[in-house]
């Protein structure tokens, strides 16, 4: 990582609109046609921190969710081309999730508003100048006389402080809201511990993790990267130790897929289980916290048997898991999140709090004091909306929030919001809320502006503009200040000349010196530990309990519980990014559209097949979606993903899929949106839609692709083959001694016969190890790969033909789930294995696929004629073909500015595949050569390994005995997929380790 430079001014980084050097990224392979005239445009003034052809890195902070991960932004010739995690950042420690990676597609999204716009009398929008826009807003504010309502989704930080102060100065009302606000957690913490804070959950230290409907690995739960990092740390097998993870939730989400045990309770009944467990702990275990005994009265009635009655989960299971939980210290029980947000969600969270408390986890793995930011919550938003509805807002401003979409239709946002006299949006795109507004003041993207964020106490992240704005947008901070100068009056106190100056002044108050400010910029912020704020049991904790939650709609057994799930598309804000639309859902592997999950038995009973479009009807509305049959679902539940069904959110999102919020009621006064609170009836429409999923067959058929072993076997140091043999299915072919001798002799002779030319010299041999015990299947590697390697998306129609271009894909297989066997999910990241004896190479007629001197399976795009024989002969099916000129459709202006100039953009008719990020290898070799040294371990990190929040991927030189990859290869859990083909892959997988229930 080089050259993190802190720069004060932007003026010295001219963004080249007409890019000469290096080209505008679009290096298209097309024979040797260089006929057209190219222009070289020099800088007016050469900036010191930019060398053409050499990437410049800036530290920043991710704003895609409230977690505030640290970023390193790679720029080339004034364009941000890749986001990587900041290794020094305490939240993400260098990793970055798929949402964070995709921020670039937010930055360069063609759907972005290109400048300020005002609504005309006929209802259409016309472009205005910033001066006009600011003058309009200032005038409206002057006229409003304090009747102002602000909805802001921004994370905590200087901007929010400014915005809040700016609003308050005028006497306006302010609410901070984002869709997943974890209000039940706050309410439960208030109830049990007397504080509404969201604590820091330390999964890394936990030895036993219980999830009560908390989808903490599904990408939308509190701080996703940090959570996953911690989970991999504790649940990833290492040196004979590994935490156990048990999940109680009606659906096997990605979190459930990574659980050692998954038990589906009746929807809404998790609290009963948690209470029963706390009861078991309290009665059976000594050494409980002293004040926990006060809970005996509360927990007493909650026997496992009663919990079984309420939840349908066996009392024996509850008792056993409780005892295991008690014996593993420290443990951690988790609740909260959209999928568990039913009308008893507060009770669930409170019960889990009690369980943690009884187990002594509070203060250990549940640490108060961090105060994770989740906004003001749903209640605050509804209250604000009521004031607007009462006509108490002359001006309404919506910033980084899209309540017109994220609220159920029954909340009546559009009608209530319409009562505001003058409505302003700062949204970057014309989203549903912006479409209702009168004035659009598009904000800079986070990578184009100065800002900061305080995701939790002790962590202050800074953002700096890494490039010139793509469009004629303006940072909202600057808009606020300019409006203040224009409007005067109560706003006259905001005198900072620019938001940048304001921000710096605020930081200097804390940091003191300019040098410290520069240091903070280079580091991406200032990080420290959150002060611990120990909590004790509050008196109100006695109010914990469980009452079965109410559900709207048909109570008859023919109806289903509707479970809206959150994954790739988040709360809907990611639905306009092709990388994420094409990213197959980690659980169902579906792309580009909505679906309705049904349990196989339910589907059989109803006689519906995959792809049959069903109509789901609740008292509040109706949606239609094709069925996906999913074994990891409670039979009485139908699950529909959140985040699609936009009516206005750019070309890619608008009209795509359905929004399950249309089926929900708005509120019943608990202060949060109960996502899981509706029962729906299901009607077959008789129409079909082929489900655009990337999976073929869901079973491994005993082929040992995603191998696993039990914890006991791992502790004995068993190899996957031995473990499989112990399980009674030996899928690995064993050669006789003579065969082995012959094979080895032949192999040695072949190796000797290869030693010609460059192959006779000494070179590294690149290899990779993927630890399946750590991999959760989160798919951030896929998005990182898309970003690094200029991979085009192909769109839904071609996904239906299996033509996705995922150089790195996650294969998900099911094990068990039949004949009473527990359902087990296995994920395995599949990428080019860079086989030593690669079957793809000899079949290429033109040497476009060949083996490099450093052990890579080279793919020379400009030599490829496209016979596709290599792809046929690839046993791993990791070669991808440009059936059409995808690069022309996948990178419309200005998305093409994101293209990595170091990677050739592939033309139509060319085969492509994972290259082990050869451009990074070559760049590292260039650097080493310029510095007159040899490569060191860690000089080359592939994009996938870099992004992986679980740290499951290790890359390096297999010839270096000291390298991490060589050492990881020596692990007894190591195996090669399809080893019996003797293709000798360079990718070694380490078998997953499972805590299986002892018989």
């Amino acid at each position, binding site marked *: 990582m080089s050259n993190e430079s802190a720069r004060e001014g932007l003026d010295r980084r001219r963004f080249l609109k007409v890019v000469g050097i290096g080209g505008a990224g679009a290096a298209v392979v097309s024979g040797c046609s*260089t006929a057209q005239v190219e222009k070289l445009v*020099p800088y007016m003034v050469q900036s010191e921190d930019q*060398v053409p*052809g*050499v990437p410049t890195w800036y530290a920043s902070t991710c704003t895609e969710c409230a977690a505030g991960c640290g970023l390193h932004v790679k720029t080339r010739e004034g364009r941000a081309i890749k986001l990587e995690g900041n290794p020094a950042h305490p939240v993400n420690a260098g990793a970055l999730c798929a949402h964070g990676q995709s921020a670039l597609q937010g930055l360069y999204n063609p759907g972005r508003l290109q400048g300020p716009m005002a609504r005309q009398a006929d209802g259409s929008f016309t472009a205005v100048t910033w001066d006009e826009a600011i003058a309009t807003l200032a005038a409206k504010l002057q006229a409003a006389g304090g009747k102002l309502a602000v909805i802001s989704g921004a994370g905590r930080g200087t901007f929010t402080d400014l915005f809040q102060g700016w609003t308050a100065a005028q006497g306006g009302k302010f609410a901070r809201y984002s869709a997943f606000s974890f209000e039940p957690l706050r309410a439960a913490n208030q109830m049990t511990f007397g504080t509404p804070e969201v604590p820091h959950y330390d999964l890394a230290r936990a030895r036993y993790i219980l999830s009560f409907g908390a989808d903490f690995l599904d990408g939308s739960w509190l701080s996703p990267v940090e959570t996953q990092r911690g989970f991999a740390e504790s649940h990833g097998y290492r040196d004979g130790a590994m935490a156990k993870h048990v999940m109680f939730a009606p659906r096997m989400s990605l979190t459930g897929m990574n659980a050692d045990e998954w038990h589906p309770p009746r929807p809404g009944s998790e609290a009963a289980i948690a209470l029963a467990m706390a009861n078991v702990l309290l009665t059976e275990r000594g050494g409980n916290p002293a004040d926990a005994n006060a809970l005996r009265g509360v927990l007493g009635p909650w026997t496992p048997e009663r919990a079984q009655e309420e939840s349908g989960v066996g009392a024996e299971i509850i008792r056993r898991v409780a005892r295991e939980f008690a014996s593993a210290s420290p443990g951690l029980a988790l609740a909260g999140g959209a999928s568990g947000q039913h009308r008893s969600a507060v009770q669930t969270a409170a019960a889990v709090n009690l369980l943690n408390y009884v187990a002594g986890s509070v203060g250990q793995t549940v640490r108060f004091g961090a105060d994770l930011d989740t906004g003001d919550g749903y209640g605050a938003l509804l209250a604000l909306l009521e004031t607007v509805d009462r006509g108490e807002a002359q001006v309404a401003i919506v910033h980084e929030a899209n309540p017109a979409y994220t609220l159920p239709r029954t909340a009546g946002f559009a009608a209530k919001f319409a009562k505001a006299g003058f409505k302003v949006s700062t949204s970057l795109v014309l989203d549903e809320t912006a479409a209702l507004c009168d004035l659009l003041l598009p904000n800079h993207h986070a990578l184009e502006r100065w800002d900061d964020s305080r995701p939790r106490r002790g962590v202050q992240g800074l953002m700096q503009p890494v490039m010139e704005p793509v469009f004629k947008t303006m940072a909202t901070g600057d808009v606020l200040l300019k409006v203040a100068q224009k409007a005067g009056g109560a706003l006259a106190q905001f005198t900072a000349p620019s938001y940048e100056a304001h921000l710096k002044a605020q930081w200097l108050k804390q940091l003191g010196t300019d040098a410290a400010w520069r240091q903070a910029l280079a580091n991406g912020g200032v990080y420290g530990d959150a002060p611990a704020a120990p909590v004790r049991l509050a008196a109100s904790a006695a109010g914990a309990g469980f009452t079965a939650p109410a559900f709207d709609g048909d109570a008859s057994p023919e109806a289903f519980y509707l479970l809206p799930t959150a994954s790739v598309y988040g709360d809907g804000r990611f639905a306009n990014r092709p990388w994420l639309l094409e990213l197959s859902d980690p659980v169902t592997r579906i792309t580009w559209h909505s679906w309705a999950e049904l349990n196989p038995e339910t589907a059989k009973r109803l006689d519906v097949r995959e792809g049959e479009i069903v109509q789901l009807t609740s008292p509040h509305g109706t949606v239609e979606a094709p069925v996906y049959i999913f074994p990891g679902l409670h039979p009485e539940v139908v699950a529909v993903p959140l985040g699609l069904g936009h009516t206005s959110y750019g070309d890619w999102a608008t009209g795509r899929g359905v929004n399950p919020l249309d089926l929900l009621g708005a509120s019943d006064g608990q202060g949060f949106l109960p996502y899981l609170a509706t029962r729906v009836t299901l009607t077959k429409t008789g129409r079909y839609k082929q489900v655009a999923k990337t999976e073929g067959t869901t079973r491994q058929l005993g082929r040992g692709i995603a191998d696993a072993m039990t914890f006991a076997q791992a502790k004995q140091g068993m190899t996957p083959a031995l473990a499989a043999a112990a399980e009674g299915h030996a899928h690995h072919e064993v050669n006789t001694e003579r065969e082995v001798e012959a094979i080895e002799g032949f192999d040695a002779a072949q190796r000797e016969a290869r030693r010609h030319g460059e192959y006779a010299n000494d070179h590294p041999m690149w290899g990779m190890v993927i630890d399946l015990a750590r991999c959760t299947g989160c798919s951030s590697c896929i998005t990182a790969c898309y970003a690094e390697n200029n991979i085009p998306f192909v769109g839904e129609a071609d996904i239906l033909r299996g033509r996705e271009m995922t150089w790195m894909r996650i294969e998900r297989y099911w094990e068990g789930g039949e004949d009473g066997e527990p359902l087990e999910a296995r994920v395995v990241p599949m990428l080019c294995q860079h086989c030593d004896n690669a079957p793809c190479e000899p079949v290429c007629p033109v040497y476009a696929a060949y083996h*490099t001197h450093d052990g890579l399976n*080279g793919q020379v795009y*400009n*030599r490829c004629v496209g016979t596709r024989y290599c792809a046929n002969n690839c046993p791993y099916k990791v070669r991808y073909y440009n059936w059409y000129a995808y690069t022309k459709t996948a990178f419309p202006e200005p998305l093409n500015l994101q293209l990595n100039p170091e990677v050739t*953009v592939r033309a139509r008719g060319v085969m492509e595949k994972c290259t082990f990020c050869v451009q990074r290898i070559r760049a590292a070799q260039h650097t080493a050569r310029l510095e007159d040294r040899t490569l060191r371990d860690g000089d080359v990190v592939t994009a996938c390994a870099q992004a992986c929040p679980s740290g499951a991927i290790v890359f390096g030189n297999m010839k270096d005995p000291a390298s991490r990859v060589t050492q990881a290869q020596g692990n007894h859990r190591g195996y090669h997929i399809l080893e019996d083909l003797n293709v000798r892959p360079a990718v070694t997988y380490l078998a997953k380790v499972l805590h299986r229930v002892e018989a």
Partner: protein
Amino acid sequence: MRKLALLGAGSLLVALAAIAAGQGTSAAQQGPANTDTLPAWKLSVRDSAALKGPRQPVFFRHDIHVGVNKTPCQYCHYSVAESSEPGIPSMTTCMGCHLIVGGSDSSHQVEIKKVREAYNNSQPIEWVRVHTLARHVHFPHMRHIKVLGANACQTCHGDVGRMPQVYQVNNINNMGFCITCHNQRQVNRDCTVCHF
């Protein structure tokens, strides 16, 4: 019959000769630099059309800057030793000298005036690219400079110090041009060294 056979053999020969000629063109172009162009001190922009190479918006005289004034290449192409891109000089680099140097000849003064105007108007000069490498080739300038030294530029770009207007001496998009050198110097000619 005989005629047919003769015709066949003849056309084969012609084809072979054509291939051989194609192979030879790069070598032919490499001939001695036109020593007689240098004394043409007073070439004006009107003469540039007759010169080899694309006409530039400003008739920049490499033969004067490099050949006469002995400006080192890296003075302007500043990043060639550290980056795959050699870099083209920023307008300030030009003005570093041309704030003072106004040109001795009227033909020079005209061109220098253009530079000054462009600088004053903050309007960068859009140079026409002479050497455009196909986009699927990654050529690390810095490694070549590292190994061959700072004055190795003319190995590929020819003696620009004798070119009033820069033109392509070698077809850098002929892969054979690269490979010949790599072969002679016994350096790696693996495909993924350049193509990825």
